[in-house]
């Protein structure tokens, strides 16, 4: 087969896709959730007349401008790569699964238009109009995520067509779009966006608090995104359970890889830690019957094992399992952090005092990104060797062109430069947002906000 000849470059094509998707997904998450957080702060500012909220919203919208720009362009390359790397996949399934992408295009369009208005309308638009111009960004962002995940859901649970003599017939694009994976996957993804963004946005403020500045700007700047992320974590655990149970029914081999289950088992256990070899997990902590219970809510349920399909149809178990366990572990730890915040708040109506809390809060941002990537590794690597589950193998989808690896090497350089540039610029923006207050002393300090019009105007006017 032709595919065999291009096997050496298949790995590079997959790595390139993983790199560009893995990079874009982080930025896309911020593009979805960050505007909601900024608009929330702006709304609080207009409601309370407290200039700190407005100042935060303005400084966040500067960071948002950078993130949205690189998100818009890093998403575009994915559209190119669908064809450059996987032409045989697109030629076969493009018209079956393309519709949600087309709709997503319009959602993103709406988002881009209102981002232009929101980011550049601070000075001249009436405050109320400006606030309203932020609302469609959030709605369109959620819609974008929903439709893109619909296409990914199609890859996991393809539906909406028939295969007759190797040809695709009776295409129903709406049925393909509303495949069964859509709802659990999209919910899981959208909640993840709020967790990742919340923890990332809280980071610079956590650092400032750790370094001893305890003014209102820093405390509120920390509390809003951090509390949003913490509040979403329990919802995410429920959504994750939903997604996993869906996988158990519709992609049993993926679930078996996530848990390292070799043989089909009644009353299957879960293993925490360890690694998979020869059909078993070694050195893991075993919890009897737990997998059956979690997957089917019944301790005696039968869970399908990896050995139910030929070796060539199994994903690389340890990669999937390690990614899955890392994601679950990080999610659980985040729950603990949220409980800590809640207890402190209930006791004293104040942020925790312990420096350890802020150290952990600093780690929560990168950890959330790791969990996000691990989630995508679980679902994408867990589907292998299929690009369209049980229908088309990834190696039958890849381009037969030689030299795909050079594109990958080039992109490594580009994304490295981009990462360095983005972090440098965002760090500078966050430092800059702290400076004017420091110079003017503690006029935004304390628990009694100065809410006179002139004070508000001068605070926002001086915000960088």
């Amino acid at each position, binding site marked *: 087969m032709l595919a065999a000849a291009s096997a050496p470059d298949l790995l590079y094509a997959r790595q390139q896709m993983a790199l560009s998707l893995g990079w874009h997904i982080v930025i896309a998450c911020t593009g979805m959730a960050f505007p909601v957080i900024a608009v929330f702060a702006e709304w609080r500012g207009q409601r309370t007349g407290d200039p700190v909220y407005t100042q935060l919203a303005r400084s966040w919208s500067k960071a948002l401008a950078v993130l949205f720009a690189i998100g818009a362009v890093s998403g575009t390359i994915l559209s190119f790569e669908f*064809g450059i790397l996987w*032409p045989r996949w697109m030629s076969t399934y*493009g*018209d079956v699964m393309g519709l949600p992408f087309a709709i997503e295009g*319009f959602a993103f369009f709406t988002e*881009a238009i209102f981002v232009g208005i929101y980011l*550049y309308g601070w000075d001249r638009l009436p405050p109320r109009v400006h606030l309203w111009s932020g609302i469609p960004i959030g709605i369109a962002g959620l819609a974008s995520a929903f439709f893109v995940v619909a296409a990914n859901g199609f890859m996991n649970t393809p539906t909406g067509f028939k295969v007759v003599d190797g040809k695709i017939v009776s295409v129903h694009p709406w049925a393909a779009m509303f495949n069964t994976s859509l709802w659990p996957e999209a919910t899981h993804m959208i909640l993840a966006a709020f967790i990742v963004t919340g923890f990332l946005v809280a980071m610079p403020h956590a650092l400032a608090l750790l370094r001893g500045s305890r003014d209102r700007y820093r405390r509120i700047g920390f509390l809003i995104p951090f509390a949003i992320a913490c509040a979403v974590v329990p919802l995410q655990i429920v959504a994750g359970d939903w997604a996993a149970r869906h996988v158990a029914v519709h992609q049993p081999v993926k679930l078996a890889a996530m848990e390292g289950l070799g043989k089909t088992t009644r009353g299957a256990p879960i293993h925490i830690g360890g690694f998979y070899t020869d059909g078993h997990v070694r050195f893991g902590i075993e919890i009897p019957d737990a997998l059956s219970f979690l997957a089917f809510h019944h301790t005696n349920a039968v869970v399908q094992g990896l050995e139910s399909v030929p070796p060539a149809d199994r994903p690389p178990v340890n990669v999937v399992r390690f990614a899955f366990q890392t994601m679950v572990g990080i999610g659980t730890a985040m729950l603990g952090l949220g409980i800590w915040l809640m207890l402190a708040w209930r006791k004293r109506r104040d942020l925790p005092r312990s420096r350890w809390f802020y150290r952990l809060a600093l780690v929560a941002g990168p950890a959330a990104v790791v969990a996000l990537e691990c989630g995508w590794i679980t679902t994408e690597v867990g589907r292998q060797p299929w690009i369209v589950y049980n229908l088309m193998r990834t190696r039958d989808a890849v381009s037969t062109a030689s030299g795909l690896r050079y594109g990958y090497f080039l992109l490594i350089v580009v994304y490295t430069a981009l990462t360095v540039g983005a972090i440098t610029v965002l760090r500078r923006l966050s430092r800059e947002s702290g400076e004017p207050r420091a110079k003017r002393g503690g006029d935004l300090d304390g628990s009694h906000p100065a809410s006179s019009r002139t004070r508000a105007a001068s605070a926002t006017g001086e915000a960088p």
Partner: protein
Amino acid sequence: MSLAVAVAVVMFVGITLYALFAGADFGGGFWDLFAGSAERGADARALIEHSVAPVWEANHVWLIFVLVVLWTAFPRAFGPIMSTLAMPLTLAAIGIILRGSAFAFRKASIPVETRRFFGAVFALSSVLTPFFLGAVVGGVASGRVPATGTGSLLRSWVNPTSMLGGAMAVVVCAFLAAVYLSADAAARGRADLTDYFARRAIGAGVVAGVVAAVGVVVLHADARHLFHHLTGRALPFLLLSVAGGLGTLALVRARQFGIARLSAALAVVAVLWGWAAGQYPYLIVGRLTITAGQGAHATLEALLGAVVVGLLVVAPALAWLLLLTRRGELVEENAHQN
């Protein structure tokens, strides 16, 4: 008109809008690149940044729209085109990434050195990206992409028609941008910048005419199908384009920038639709027709429906954005100066 042709028309409208709007943004980068030293080019660069900043992301979406319609409605064309033209497309994609990021990074930076670096990346990639996209068009229009599978990675875009397409794209972007920018400068009452960009608009217009004239010879030798129809059924479009181009030069000289904008746009639209008429009925010239390359009928219907609903949502919002930009409501009063 069959359903597939209707969708192809919609896709081509997307290409047209991308050329008119994003093309002007790329052209802005072109003039940024040639604006001279940081001190001398400061005013021109500030005007370019002003005009491009609030709209470029929205303008960029037309490209995504075109790609999405191509793979949804004409999946059999998408695979061969994208995989054969992998090299210029990868370079264009990298150009798009670097350009957008560098523009955002420059806006958010203060040190002159940093701004100069990001500015150079922005400007350079603004010139290279349209070149590679134009080269892609040349590969498709000269029939160098096979109907299935993957064609020659190199010859598909290193050929006379692709080089013509690339050069044409760069010049057209520069021409559009210079006309738009002279109108913007005039609206802001900046006589110096108005003259500055008016001179460049005329220069770019003349160069575009020369490239187009050379192009006729190139197409005659290298892309016979296209040449044949360009001098046949597509001829009215070409004549319209020539009239629009000459008209623009006269209008710019007469300082009638409002109408000059329109006639410059007309010149570009006409040349694009001339290409479309010349290429019809092919998606890939000589290899794959619109009818042969179309996807499932139900998908085409759903896609058209989605486009209609999508435009109903997007059009008023886009009109508001452009109106606000035109009225100067979208400015940062504390923006960093160059």
